[in-house]
């Protein structure tokens, strides 16, 4: 894809930086009280209702198998065509442009839907492909 730099919302989860395309990031809110879901995977921390909609909260660190014990302060709401979801964040850095298309971080699993390393002013981050990740998550396990 020979495109110009795309704006991404960059946030930290543990010691790693992640980025989602700014146009997919609908909102940043404080982490609310969550409702636990029966039979859910460990990275699915729970759900909360936001503006009449139930949103699942995904712990990206657990998702890639590197859990952290920091307190998540905020969640980043991401909306794609199929649905919406929320990513945990210890700190939201802000909107930053990412040049080009970094390669996938893995061939399978969740990493197959992350690209990096991508340069942002705050450092190197993994750029998330929200549509693919949601698809991956909705497949269940």
């Amino acid at each position, binding site marked *: 894809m020979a495109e110009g730099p795309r704006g991404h919302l960059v946030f930290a989860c543990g010691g790693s930086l992640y980025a989602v395309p700014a146009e997919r990031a609908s909102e940043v809110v404080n982490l609310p009280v969550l409702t636990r879901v029966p039979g859910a995977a460990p990275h699915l921390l729970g759900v909360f209702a936001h503006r009449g909609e139930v949103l699942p909260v995904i712990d990206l660190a657990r998702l890639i198998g590197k859990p952290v014990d920091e307190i998540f302060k905020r969640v980043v709401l991401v909306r794609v065509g199929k649905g919406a979801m929320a990513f945990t964040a210890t700190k939201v850095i802000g*909107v930053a442009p990412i040049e080009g298309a970094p390669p996938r971080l893995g061939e399978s699993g969740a990493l197959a839907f992350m690209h990096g390393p991508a340069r942002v002013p705050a450092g190197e981050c993994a750029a998330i492909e929200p549509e693919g990740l949601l698809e991956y998550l909705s497949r269940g396990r």
Partner: protein
Amino acid sequence: MTTPLPKGRSRWITNPSTIAAPLGVLIGVSYVASTLSLPEGTGRWYAGLIVAVVIVFNVSADLWEQTRLKTIRGLGDGTIAPSPATLEQAAREASQAATTTFFLALGAFVVGSGVIAALWYAIAHPPLIVAVRIGLVGLLVGPITAVMANLLVLPRARRVLHELAAAGLSPDALARAVPVQYALRRRLVLYAAVAVLTPMMLVADASLARSNEIFEKVRAQPDVASARAVMEAQKAEGFGALSGLGVVTVFMVVLCGWLSGSVLGDPLNKLGQETERLAKGRYERGRLVVAENEIWAAATAMTAMEAHLLDAVGGAKEASRGIRDAAVELVENGTQQEQGAAEQSAALMATTATTEELARSARQISANAQRVSEIARGTLAAAQGGKASAESFTSAMGEVRGGNQAIADSVVKLNKRVQQVGRIIEFIDGIADKSDLLALNAELEGHKAGDVGQGFGLVAAEMRRLAENVMTSTREIARLIEDIRDATNAAVMATEAGVKATDSGAALAAKVSNSLGDIVEFANLSADAMQSISLATVQQQAGSDQLVAAMEDINRSTRKNVESAKEMASTQTALVTLSKELEEVVDTFGGRS
């Protein structure tokens, strides 16, 4: 222990005279028969007279003897109670019995033969010469019969005297009852004379009479042949009666000799045995050899000597026992004294050392007392100063307590203010957080709006930075508030502890003040006391120095005393040995005192 006199002793003593008299009569009759030819028809009277006179004289002599022995008879029968006086009387009777028998026998024979001759002459009218010769027979036979009776009675009398001694008669009383007569020589002469002269005269007279008779017969023969025949016939028949007379006479003489020898020899023999016993040192009180004359004197003297010796030995024994006991006691005392002296010496040595130590201590005490006196004065001054200091300290503590309380109150107030500030800061932080979130979303929306929203996004970003600064500041302030809270908490605790400390400090200071007051009082007293002690110890020092000197003198004396005691102990030990030896020597006189 006394043994009473056996019964019938009076008769038993005189029995030998009853035996001797017929013997004498037999001799007399034999003499008459062998030497005198009694006229026809007178022999019957003669024999009858002899029998009668012998009976009469024997009975009367016996009665006489018995009257001379009535005390002995009474004692034997029990009609007379044994007492020193009666026993002495009985002894006197016994001692005289032999002599009485002698004279009675002699008298009876002389008078008896005279009476027989006179009566026979008056009745039978024999030739006068025959009657005279018969009357003289008593003179020939009487002495030997009397001697024999005497010799036979003497041992029995002695036996009775021994029995009397056993019945309780004391040797002294016996010696008094039997007076010593120095007549041994006379007695021996008498015995010898009677023993020799009586047979000699008897034999001589008998021979003379026989020769005369034969001569008369021979002269009456007409011729020589018939005369020779008569002589031969006389020779054949004539020695029969004469030889019988000779045998009896010899028997009597031998008997007399044997008896006299026994009478003299027995007591001598016994005396010899007693002397041997004495020589061996086996003394016994009350031993007495009964004898007569010089032997009796010797026996009584020996008994007295033995009694004296026994007394002396008894005294010696007692004395030696006393000496031994005294010596043993002396040794014991000496040992004790020696021990005591040694102990005393040791004690005195210790006492001397102690006294020297005391003197040294006294000097030390004196020095110390002066030093303490000075210290006590110093203490008094220090205590007075301390009391003033403690009082000012107490008031200072009161001030500190007030200050502390004020600080504590201020700190509590500060804490409240800080907490209020903290709440405000939290509120501000919450606003800043919301502002940050709002600005973040605004930035996001501005970005989504593309170029149109770019300016909006910039403002939002700026706002976010502002909000973040505020949050950083509030975090800083929160941290400071936390620090202040910790500090004020510590301050509150410190001031509370300070208040408590000042409280207890004030109490302590009050106690110290009181104690120092007491100390001032005591120090005053002790300063006075120490001055007194100092004075007293100076005086005591002088005294103890004198005591040391005195103790040294005593010590010297005691050492001498110990040496003397040792010497005395060895001397006393030697004395004990000597006294034991003495006692052993005295004990060899194994008498019963």
